[in-house]
């Protein structure tokens, strides 16, 4: 059986698929690839099922050795120095292309210079143990028994490859963050004043260092005036824009809490979540209010 050995996990890497459905009412976030699109592109190129697991890497990619021949693909954030080495020979690994990796070869992903998260997909998918129906690691809570971040020496089994469907996909390298991120009115929008609502849709926010899969923290702009205090706990979803008392919004991520007591001013439309996932610390984000029905048509894939 083929496998991949983790020589160096990089800054933070974990196995992810499309997440864990059906356990949110027990406090378990859906999780899965934060940038779903990057994961799906890898699956598509390699002929994998959409839910076959890939490795999500963050800012600095890892180093992996292949035990058995493999077909691989890097997608999502751009890692321009990615290379594959076997003995003396080394070749670059282009973005969003099928690459054959011979048994024994070593993939060095290196820095992710555009975007925040790069996926390593492999034909057949990583077949690590599934918990509650998913291989996605809940990295914030390693004791929960729902996976953990990759560590040096981990050996990840690989499934039986399907038939590659295409060699590459010619689309934009990364969901660029310079396009505005579309938001719709949130659960507690009525508690915010006109000025604050307008500010969220017009000013620039700066992504903070403390951001992770649970939430992307924003600074740079503070909502003016009093923001509503804590509210009765309500169900929350990835993309919800919470505003704590300091007036600096947090966009909940795929591992974000399933309930929360901070007022929610807006929600990022599902189609734009990959762009939130790819936002790097110090990136500047702008939001744009859109109509809920227009957002639904985008989420349904009827319009861009």
């Amino acid at each position, binding site marked *: 059986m083929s496998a991949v050995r983790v020589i160096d996990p990089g800054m933070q890497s974990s196995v992810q698929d499309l997440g864990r*459905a*059906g*356990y*949110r*009412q*027990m*406090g*378990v976030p*859906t999780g899965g690839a934060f940038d779903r699109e990057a994961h799906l592109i890898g699956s598509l190129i390699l002929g994998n099922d959409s839910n076959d697991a890939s490795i999500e890497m963050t800012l600095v990619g890892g180093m992996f050795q292949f035990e058995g021949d493999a077909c691989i693909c890097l997608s999502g954030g751009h890692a321009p120095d990615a290379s594959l080495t076997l003995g003396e020979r080394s070749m670059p690994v282009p973005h969003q292309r099928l690459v054959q990796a011979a048994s024994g070869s070593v993939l060095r992903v290196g820095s992710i210079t555009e975007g925040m998260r790069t996926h390593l997909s492999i034909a057949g998918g990583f077949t690590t143990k599934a*918990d*509650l129906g998913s291989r996605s690691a*809940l990295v*914030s*809570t390693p*004791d*929960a*028994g*729902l996976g953990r971040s990759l560590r040096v020496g981990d050996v990840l089994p690989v499934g039986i490859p399907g038939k590659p469907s295409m060699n590459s996909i010619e689309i934009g390298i990364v969901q660029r963050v310079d396009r505005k991120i579309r938001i*719709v*009115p*949130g*659960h507690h929008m009525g508690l915010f004043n006109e000025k604050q609502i307008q500010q969220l849709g017009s000013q620039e926010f700066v992504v903070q260092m403390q951001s992770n899969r649970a939430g992307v923290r924003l600074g740079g702009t503070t909502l003016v005036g009093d923001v509503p205090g804590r509210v*009765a*706990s*309500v*169900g*929350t*979803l990835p*993309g*919800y824009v919470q505003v704590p008392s300091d007036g600096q919004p947090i966009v909940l991520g795929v591992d974000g*809490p*399933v*309930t*929360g007591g901070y007022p*929610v001013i807006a*929600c990022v*439309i*599902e189609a734009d979540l990959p762009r939130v996932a790819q936002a790097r610390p110090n990136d500047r984000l702008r939001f744009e209010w859109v109509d*809920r*029905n227009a*957002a*639904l048509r*985008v*989420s*349904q894939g009827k319009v861009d």
Partner: protein
Amino acid sequence: MPDFLVNWTSERSIWVEFPDAQYGTRVSCGAADLLRRRLGEQARSVVPAGPGVLVELEPELVVGNEVESLINQTARDALAGEDLEWSPRDHLIPVCYDNRVSPDLRAVAEACAMSIQELIDLHTKEVYIVESIGFSPGFGYLGSIDERLQLPRRKTPRTQVPAGSVAIAERFTAVYPFQTPGGWHLIGRSPTALFLPSDDSPCSLLRVGDRVRFHAIPYDEYNSRKSAE
């Protein structure tokens, strides 16, 4: 005040609220169960929390006003008590209230101007309701604790709270299922496992709407039950 509200909270979610119903009781939990059954694949998730239920929809399956109408009808039926199969479960959770495993016990008793025994009596006499689950897998917000025990959260949260810690803050009490950061006051420790993913059903000991009581166990018993796990 209407009996219930149905509001879109994004292009893919609807919040159903029962303003007059008590949190975590038959109406909202029954409604959540009924919504799950009736919506089937149209709902990715149905999460009861506090005063209502959040329905996360499958966007592909949202056509016209059908889903919204079905949710309205279901909320109405839940209020009328029709087709409800839901019932709460009762849990008795052992807690060791001992300074060796309860770093804030003495400080909380002092802040509440009572003896440690009075604190334990107040914490164990109440039957709590799981009002919502969140923060971490299996972490239940149990309400409400006796008013005499209600304190604001700690100014500085701890970066690591041990698994099993029994804590209070504001009007809630909870058991931390895992070692995580936490800003509540730690008054006890329980040997009971709250979340076992290997156990597909129930996997979380607590569900929203369940009733919970705590009972005090001595330090030795805590240790032997902990090591027997």
